[in-house]
């Protein structure tokens, strides 16, 4: 197996894959009778340039960083955590319960950290169970985490349409959380500093997400625990030989993964929308897997991939507005193509590129 230099493997290859995905999407758009270049311009404007566009893009990026890191931590131990969606959902419940209990009488600088811990703890618990079942009962974590997504969904419907439903209105959603417990919006902070910024749901959870990238990097590459985690992922036999207790590692990897997925809820509940709504993770838990795949399970890669997917979500909305013939589903198609080329076929061009480099 030929080995590419790092700049080619982590720089050129992803770019080729991306270009291919966008190229094919462009062909589809052309077939629909629209100009691919006009569509591309609309997407880029919609994601970065337009009024408040960047704010929305970074808001989605924040959620995707959390779910991407969640998938990546599990990947490091060769575990496929499909349950980011459910863990984020249950994480939202954790944050909500804490805020509803203490938010009205504790000051924000106390209730917000508690809510963050609550989200992480509930998300962790929701992933701990599949992790434990995998480690000690041999139930495959892919199956159980999918099941747990459905269970989470059921529980949340029951709660949001029942005891947690905001009285006096017909939607299955929770009461708004007190303002003191909400994370400040970036545009509000900008105003305080005397800067101009358009309203967007972007909030301080973005900084929390960046911090989480750093923490995950340190945990995996700079601690003994991370060493053991990677050892289990690379070779279980070698890990056993080295005296690493594989089962507790599986359980703790899943729990950490769930905690990170749970933190995604903070961005939405304490940040963007201020309440728990039905199905608020909205597929971001699943997209996180693609983010982790494309980001090669490395926090820096995840940051970039989350930005790309966040831009796709936001730019895609604009695409939908702008063109009659292009719908939201087009964005799903582009996302699908990116996942196909960057994930499933990510190594397709390695032999080609290495031959090309070898000749020059």
């Amino acid at each position, binding site marked *: 197996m030929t*080995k590419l230099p790092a700049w080619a493997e982590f720089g050129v290859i992803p770019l080729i894959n991306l270009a291919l995905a966008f190229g094919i999407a462009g062909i589809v758009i052309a077939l629909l009778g629209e100009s691919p270049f006009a569509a591309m311009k609309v997407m880029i404007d919609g994601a970065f340039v337009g009024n408040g566009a960047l704010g929305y893009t970074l808001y989605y990026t924040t959620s995707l960083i959390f779910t991407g890191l969640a998938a990546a931590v599990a990947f490091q131990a060769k575990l496929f955590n499909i349950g980011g969606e459910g863990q984020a959902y249950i994480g939202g419940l954790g944050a909500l319960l804490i805020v509803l209990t203490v938010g009205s009488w504790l000051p924000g600088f106390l209730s917000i950290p508690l809510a963050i811990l609550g989200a992480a703890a509930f998300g962790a618990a929701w992933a701990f169970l599949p992790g434990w079942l995998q480690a000690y009962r041999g139930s495959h974590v892919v199956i159980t985490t999918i099941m747990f997504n459905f269970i989470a969904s059921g529980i949340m419907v029951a709660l949001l349409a029942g005891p947690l439903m905001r009285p006096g209105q017909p939607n299955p959603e929770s009461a708004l959380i007190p303002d003191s417990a909400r994370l400040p919006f970036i545009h509000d902070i900008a105003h305080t500093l005397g800067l101009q910024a358009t309203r967007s749901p972007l909030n301080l959870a973005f900084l929390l997400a960046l911090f989480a990238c750093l923490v995950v990097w340190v945990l995996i*590459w*700079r*601690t*003994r*625990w*991370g*060493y*053991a985690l*990677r*050892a289990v992922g*690379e*070779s279980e*036999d*070698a890990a*056993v*030989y*080295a*005296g690493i*207790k594989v089962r507790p590692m599986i359980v703790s990897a899943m729990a950490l993964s769930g905690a990170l997925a749970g933190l995604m809820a903070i961005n939405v509940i304490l940040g963007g929308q201020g309440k728990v709504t039905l199905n608020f993770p909205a597929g971001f838990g699943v997209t996180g897997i693609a983010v982790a795949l494309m980001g090669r399970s490395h926090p820096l890669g995840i940051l970039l991939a989350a930005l790309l997917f966040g831009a796709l979500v936001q730019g895609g909305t604009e695409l939908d507005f702008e063109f009659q013939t292009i719908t939201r589903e087009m964005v799903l198609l582009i996302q699908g193509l990116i996942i196909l080329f960057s994930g499933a076929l990510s190594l397709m061009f390695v032999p080609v590129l290495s031959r090309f480099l070898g000749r020059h």
Partner: protein
Amino acid sequence: MAVSSENTSRGSSVTAPALCLTGITKRFGTVLANDTVDLQVLPSSIHGIVGENGAGKSTLVSILYGFYPADAGRIEIGGEQVAIRSSADAIANGIGMVHQHFMLVPSFTVLENVMLGAEGGTLLQEGARATREELLRLERAYGLEVDPDALVGELPVGLQQRVEILKALRRGARILILDEPTGVLTPDEADRLFDILRGLREQGVTILLITHKLREIMAVTDRVSVMRQGKMVAHRDTSGTTREELASLMVGREIDFAPPPSSAKPGGVRLEARDLTWRDARGVSRLKNVSLTLKAGEILGLAGISGNGQSILLDVLAGISPVQEGEIRIGERAITASFPFDPSECRALGVAHVPEDRHRRGLILNFEASENAVLGYHEGQKTGKGRWLEPGRMRRFCNALMERFDVRPRQPRLRAANFSGGNQQKLVMAREIEPDPRIMLIGQPTRGVDIGGIAAIHEEIVALREKGCAILLVSVELDEILALSDRIAVMNAGEIVGEVARAATNAREIGLMMAGIQQRAAA
């Protein structure tokens, strides 16, 4: 199959050779696995290819069977040049292969396995009937008896191998390649295999036997070719050569079969195992009442054909597999089924372990050398302080190890997979020797290691003994056991069948014990 008697390129033989290889060359990266290899195999003969591990035998047969293409060279079958690009091509040209690790579906019957890949139409019935008839015919013709309706997974290995041979014959193989066929067999099963091979030869089948065991070459082949470091170094008629000549051709030097002078002065008992018995998940006894003692400053060699319980014994002693019955005593600590230990505690007791399989266990191939240099010791001072990992410290440590044990290239950041087999093994040895263990368990220290590497590793083992370490050396290479051990224990079928002082024995005696023919109590 086409037969032509005219166009033999070398003109030495009367009939065309069944198989003729000319100038076969294959390179993997920087390694020249096959270097302009020539080979002629006469029809209806048993032709042996011998060579040490890593001499290029497996590469050669892989090319012949279409697993990968040769970089250069020509293959002729029955005098006609053929192109073999896949195993389907090989089968179409009448080449059959019996792999070292069987390619059988354990939950299928013998009949179903033999049919695999040649099922006939959409419905199985017709193909099954034809295969059953063919099996009966083959059985009559070659004396290959197997119950067609037995489940393959329930057959003993010897019979499973017979199924592999039947599979090849069913597909019309006229040239049968056997790659290390006796590695998994008991001596008795091996003898029966040889009878079968002789029978096949009488029926006109040409057999290519790949092995590193000279006993087999002498027992069954007509001609023998010797490979060394990718080159074909000699061809001999078996009747006109001797074990000693072949052995020296294989290694490229005269082998000294006399025991080396041992400077060992055994000290106190460091590890004592008593009556270890171990059963696998299916309830088959893999160890039966195994007892041994390791003494300070002494190497106990554990000889045996692979698969006779050595691997599981190593695992039990290293805390990887639990003690089921019996007891291990290391210093004051007694390990039993009720008081088990794990690899961490094992290391804490001063036991180091060089595992048999460095790719699966001893190393994490995707990790940097520096990360591998602390595998198993990653909780200690070498990696950093507290809960933290300090890559700089690990690399400095690794660099020092590489310096001291001459691991090349000296690149702590290189992935373990990118080192040669010998240097990978040196890295594992270095890691395990560095903490000055009281007891060292070593499994197959030179498997897949080139000759230069072997010498260096052997020197390390002897140096470790000189420092007073108690060493258990498990190896399937009898020469290695003889060259290094002070005492030799021999395992056969999960039991220790004999234990002798090195000075009081010879290769013949150990060989007989390995084959389970002779037993001898401790001298």
